[in-house]
């Protein structure tokens, strides 16, 4: 019996993971199925759009700026080994647009938005506001989750586009100021090498990440345990699961788009 207990524990863990995945999948299907069905809540949608999109701009912009700069330095240092310093503008642009812009933007939004959504909805659950919504003939999933998920799915690609631009600008700034690139040549190189699909694929990734971030925030908030500890746990789970799902989705989408 003692020898079997680790296997039993492993089995329980796998079953727990699968049942959680199933619950998340059903929740996601419910959210999607309600997107096009009335009633609609435009005020809640606009509020979510401001909270997720507009107020995330500074943190996404700063992250992109420093990442673009660091990327330029790294590529320059690496490129020097085989006399390929000239690839800095192209690699910074492609790297930002395809990978770093969407992934880092998604992660910053996960940290900022998934946590706040989970904490807000979790607190609403603990203080019976979710029950109050039901007694007021309002479907909590439709009123709380759908506007946030739609807003995040639309807002994150815009954040990614802004982040890409700022990140490329960060690379240009470091390239011109620190690495002695000619400004016009750097910009021309960037424009010449960057293709529309590089940008579009990043924006599509951003939409997928936005969906996952808001979904995880809403799911964990709605399933929050009791008290401050329950809300804290829901918030932590929302950020962790959103981050892991972003990396997993990034790999799958990269396979889909580029392999």
């Amino acid at each position: 019996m003692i020898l079997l207990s680790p296997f039993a524990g492993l089995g329980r863990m796998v079953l727990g993971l699968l049942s959680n995945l199933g619950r998340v999948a059903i929740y996601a299907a419910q959210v999607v199925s309600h997107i096009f069905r009335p009633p609609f809540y435009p005020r809640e949608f606009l509020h979510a759009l401001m909270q997720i999109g507009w107020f995330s701009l500074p943190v996404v912009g700063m992250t992109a700026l420093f990442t673009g700069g660091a990327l330029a330095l790294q590529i320059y240092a690496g490129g020097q080994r085989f006399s390929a310093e000239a690839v800095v503008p192209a690699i910074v642009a492609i790297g930002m647009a395809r990978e770093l812009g969407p992934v880092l933007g998604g992660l910053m939004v996960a940290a900022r938005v998934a946590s706040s959504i989970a904490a807000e909805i979790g607190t609403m659950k603990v203080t019976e506001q979710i029950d109050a919504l039901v007694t007021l003939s309002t479907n909590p999933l439709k009123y709380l989750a759908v506007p946030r998920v739609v807003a995040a799915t639309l807002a994150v690609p815009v954040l990614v586009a802004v982040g890409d631009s700022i990140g490329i600008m960060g690379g240009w700034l470091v390239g011109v100021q620190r690495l002695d690139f000619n400004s016009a040549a750097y910009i021309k190189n960037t424009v010449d090498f960057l293709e529309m699909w590089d940008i579009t694929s990043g924006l599509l990734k951003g939409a997928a990440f936005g969906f996952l971030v808001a979904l995880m925030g809403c799911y964990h908030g709605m399933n929050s345990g009791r008290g401050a500890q329950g809300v804290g746990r829901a918030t932590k789970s929302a950020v962790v699961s959103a981050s892991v799902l972003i990396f997993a989705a990034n790999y799958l989408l990269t396979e889909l788009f580029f392999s």
Partner: protein
Amino acid sequence: MIELRGVHKTFGSNAVLRGVDLTIAKGTSMVIIGGSGTGKSVTLKCILGLIKPDGGSITLDGQDVTRGDRDAFLARFGMLFQGGALFDSLRIWENVAFRLLRGSLARPKAEAREIAIEKLRRVGLGPQVADLFPAELSGGMQKRVSLARAIAANPEIIFFDEPTTGLDPIMSGVINDLIREIVVEMGATAMTITHDMSSVRAIADNVAMLHGGKVRWTGPVSEMDATPDPYVQQFIHGRAEGPIESLR
């Protein structure tokens, strides 16, 4: 009329309701008393469909509450939650008029605001609170706002979950009087959960005591003091000694 027959509900290994039988006649005020954890709130949430019972039946005017149009069913109810359950992100008037701004009872915004202000006045709050947020009000004022929200759409049935918990004795008296006045004025059926015996005497037409997952005693409030049931006597007099076990 609301009728519960043999309602059971278990959470994990904890059987909270073990066959609750209760009848609440139309237009009367029923108060449910009982110790903490005896299933008072669960009973109320089962009627509203917030919790699904494991067994038994709950009917409203002869119709099973789990069947039929859910929106139409809920539109007949108003509910005052224990902590108020006001929506933090909405202004006071938007909280009160929540049901009037969306769904089947929706009406123009100006009209909904007017009704909200009238309901606030009914619970003793002036129009100056209408544009505040819940966090800007005291606990007693929040309870009044929650009461205003419960009656905003003139429901036929109103539930009150611990309406005086956390309030000082004077504010408790004010809320009790308001509940009694409003229920009589609207001719509504009321169901209240409370530990507060002054609330029981102020609000109730009938009283039911839950103990051990069942209705231990039920009858008119006028007969409550005279009942020989030792559980009821221990509870209403707040005695530590008696058949109800207490942790000390």
